[in-house]
C-alpha cells in the first residue's frame, strides 16, 4: 500500500528533512511513526498525501507514484486516503454532521446519499449530533470525516496531541477498531506510553533518518 524507496527531501535552504528513507507498509497494517519534533515524521506524513514531493527516491501510495504525480491526480489520491491532524481542522461554525457532509459535497458525492453516509460514519466513531463538542469528540468528528470516503489508508498525524488521557485512550481505540476493519493506519506520535501498549509496528525517525523499524529489526534479531 505504501512504499518509500531511498527517499530524500532537501529544503531550499539546504537542510535535509529526510535522508535515504526506505520502508514498506502492507495491507491491513497499523504503523507507529515515532521520533522527536523535526525528526521527519511530518515530512513523511505530508508526502503520503502528496502535500510534499520527495527530492530524490520514490514514494508510492495506494497505486500512485507521489514523486511524479500529476496535479490532476492529487485530488484522486486524497479521496482514497483519510487524514487527521492534532488540531482537528474542522469548520467551527458548522455542526459535526455538516463538517462531514462538507467533505462529501466538495468531492462531488451524490446529494441524496450524503445524509445516510454521514449518519453511518458518525455512528462508527460513536457520536450523535449535538452542539458542543469536547476535544476528543472533535477528533472523532475529524476521524469520521476522514472515513466517509471509505479510504484504504488512514493517516493520523499526532491525533492525540491535544487530548487528555481519557480522550486519548478513546481515540486510539477507535483507530485500532478502524484498523481491525482492514484499513491501513499510519499514526505519527511521540506518546511512547501509547506505543508501548501494543505490539504494532514501530518506525522511528531521528534527524531525517530511519533509525529503527520493528518489522525489519525484529526479524533480523530473530534470525541471529
Amino acid at each position: 500500500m505504501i512504499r518509500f524507496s531511498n527517499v530524500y527531501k532537501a529544503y531550499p535552504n539546504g537542510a535535509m528533512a529526510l535522508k535515504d528513507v526506505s520502508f514498506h507498509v502492507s495491507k491491513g497494517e497499523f504503523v507507529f511513526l515515532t521520533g522527536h519534533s523535526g525528526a521527519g515524521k511530518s515530512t513523511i506524513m505530508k508526502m503520503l498525501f502528496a502535500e510534499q514531493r520527495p527530492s530524490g527516491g520514490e514514494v508510492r501510495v495506494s497505486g500512485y507514484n507521489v514523486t511524479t504525480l500529476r496535479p490532476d491526480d492529487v485530488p484522486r489520491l486524497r479521496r482514497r486516503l483519510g487524514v487527521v491532524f492534532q488540531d482537528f481542522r474542522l469548520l467551527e461554525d458548522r455542526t459535526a454532521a455538516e463538517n462531514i457532509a462538507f467533505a462529501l459535497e466538495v468531492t462531488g458525492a451524490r446529494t441524496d446519499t450524503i445524509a445516510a453516509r454521514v449518519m453511518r460514519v458518525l455512528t462508527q466513531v460513536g457520536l450523535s449530533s449535538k452542539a458542543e463538542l469536547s476535544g476528543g469528540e472533535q477528533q472523532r468528528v475529524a476521524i469520521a470525516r476522514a472515513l466517509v470516503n471509505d479510504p484504504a489508508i488512514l493517516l493520523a498525524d499526532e491525533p492525540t496531541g491535544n487530548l487528555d488521557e481519557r480522550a486519548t485512550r478513546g481515540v486510539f481505540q477507535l483507530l485500532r477498531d478502524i484498523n481491525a476493519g482492514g484499513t491501513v493506519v499510519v499514526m505519527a506520535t511521540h506518546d511512547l506510553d501509547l506505543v508501548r501498549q501494543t505490539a504494532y509496528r514501530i518506525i522511528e525517525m531521528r534527524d531525517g533518518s530511519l533509525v529503527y523499524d520493528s518489522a525489519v529489526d525484529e526479524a533480523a534479531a530473530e534470525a541471529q
Partner: protein
Amino acid sequence: MKLLSREALLSFRRAPLLSVLSVTTIAFSLFTVGLFGLVAINLREALRGIEERVEIVAYILRGTPAETIVIATQDISAFPEVQEVNYVTEEQALQRARAELVEFRDAYRDLQVNPLPASIEVRLKDGYRDATSAERVAQRLKGFGFVDDVRFGREWVQKLDHLRNLTGLVGLVIGLAFAAVAVVIIGVTIRLTILQRAREISIMRLVGATNWFIRGPFLLEGAMKGLLGGLLSLALCYGGYLLFRDKSGGTLAGLIFFRPEHMVLIIVFGVLLGLGGSLVSVGRHLRHV
C-alpha cells in the same frame, strides 16, 4: 452546481463594498469604451453620407471641343472606381451658379463673358469613396490634356477619417486603463475572500476536492460581476445616448445606438474581464493556502 452558485453569491454578502466597486469599475471601463464607440459609429454613419457626396471635379480648359470631352467621359466611366460621369458645360455651370449661389445672382446676371469653366463631375462607386481611391482617379484625370485642374474633398474627408480613428483609439486607451483597474479590484476582492476562507479551502484540498471545484465559485463570482458591469455600462451608454439625442434640440436627432450584436459584444467583454480578473487572482493566491 447549487453549491457553486451559492458560494459565488455569498461573496457579495461577505464583501459588499468591494463587490460593488468591482462591478462599477467594470461598468465604467465598458462605459468609456462604449461611449467613444458610440461617437465613432455615429461619425462613421455621418461620414457615409458625406462620402456618398464625394465628387471629383475636373475643370476643362477653355476651347476644348465638346466631342473630345464626350469621348473622354466614356473612357472615364469605364474606370473600375467610377459610378457616374457627368459633363457640365459652361452654360450649365453658370445656370447652376445662378440657382445655387443666391447671394451672387446679381453679379452673375450682368456678366458679358461666362467666367465659369466647363467640368466633368465624377462620382465614385461605394467602396471606393475614400481618400486614396479619389486621389488615384484624380491623378488619372489629370492625364487628360484638356483637364486644367482637379478638385476633390480629399482633405476634410481625410480629417474626418482621422477624427474617427482617433476617437476609437482614445476610447480604447481610457477603457483599457479602467479595465486594468477593474482587474486589480476584482483581484483584491478575491484575495480577501480566499484569506477569509483559507481554512475551508485547505480542508477542501485535504479531502480531495479538485482544483476546478475550488476555483469554480471564484470564477463564477468574477463572471457574474463582469455580467453586471456589462449590463450597467450598457444602461449608462443608453442614458448618455438619450441625453445627447434629446437635449441637442434636434440637431443630433439622427444619432444611432449600438446594434444588438454590439451590445452582446460589450456584455461578453464584461464577463471576460471579470473572469480574467478572478482567474489571475485565484491562480496567484490559491497556491499559498
